[in-house]
């Protein structure tokens, strides 16, 4: 599945986008990313799956697009 990063997370990860397959749910994905990018674990971000903001764990499939977004600062 496609993982999108925004704002300061792009600098932290070093990419705007990663392709990671077979993550069964959000918690698994987060654990994986936090292990790969320890700074991410200390960062504030919210998650959207297919553009819908979610707060709890949720099953994922490979066609989902997951976005990790730091606090908004538009305007």
């Amino acid at each position: 599945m496609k993982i999108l990063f925004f704002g300061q997370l792009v600098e932290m990860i070093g990419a705007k986008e990663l392709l990671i397959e077979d993550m069964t749910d959000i918690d698994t994905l987060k654990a994986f990313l936090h292990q790969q990018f320890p700074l991410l674990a200390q960062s504030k971000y919210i998650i959207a799956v297919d553009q819908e903001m979610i707060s709890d764990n949720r099953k994922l499939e490979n066609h989902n697009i997951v976005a990790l977004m730091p606090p908004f600062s538009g305007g």
Partner: protein
Amino acid sequence: MKERTPKNIFVQGAISSAFIADSIQKHSTKTDIGGHSIFLGQVRADEIEGKKVVAIEYTAYEEMALQKMHEIRETVFAEYPLTCMHVYHSLGKVAAGEICLFVFTSSAHRKAATEACSVLVERIKAELPVWGAEILEDETHQWKVNQ
């Protein structure tokens, strides 16, 4: 509720005063309008640890932002008797002193336009996936935090 398709709100770089004037001028044919309310966000040359902000560089999750703006637009149209509503937000670099946000509401009587404009500005800042990096004079940057 009337169906409206998501409009693009993003413009590359600063929003010019000529663009704003043009937008105002276009409403002169809508003679049921009695009041317009406009909010303009301007980039401040704040000082951060002794270094001046020279610009803000904006990025967005564009697709999601447009969808979210569409929802906000529908809600605000349903709540206030507006004639028109226009929102423009910059992407890319906007220098200090330039306009990065233009929110424009119109209604027969002033109260609806004024209140809707304020609500829109608050919701845009809180709910749109947009990020601003404050570019400092030494070419380093720091990420903007709202409020």
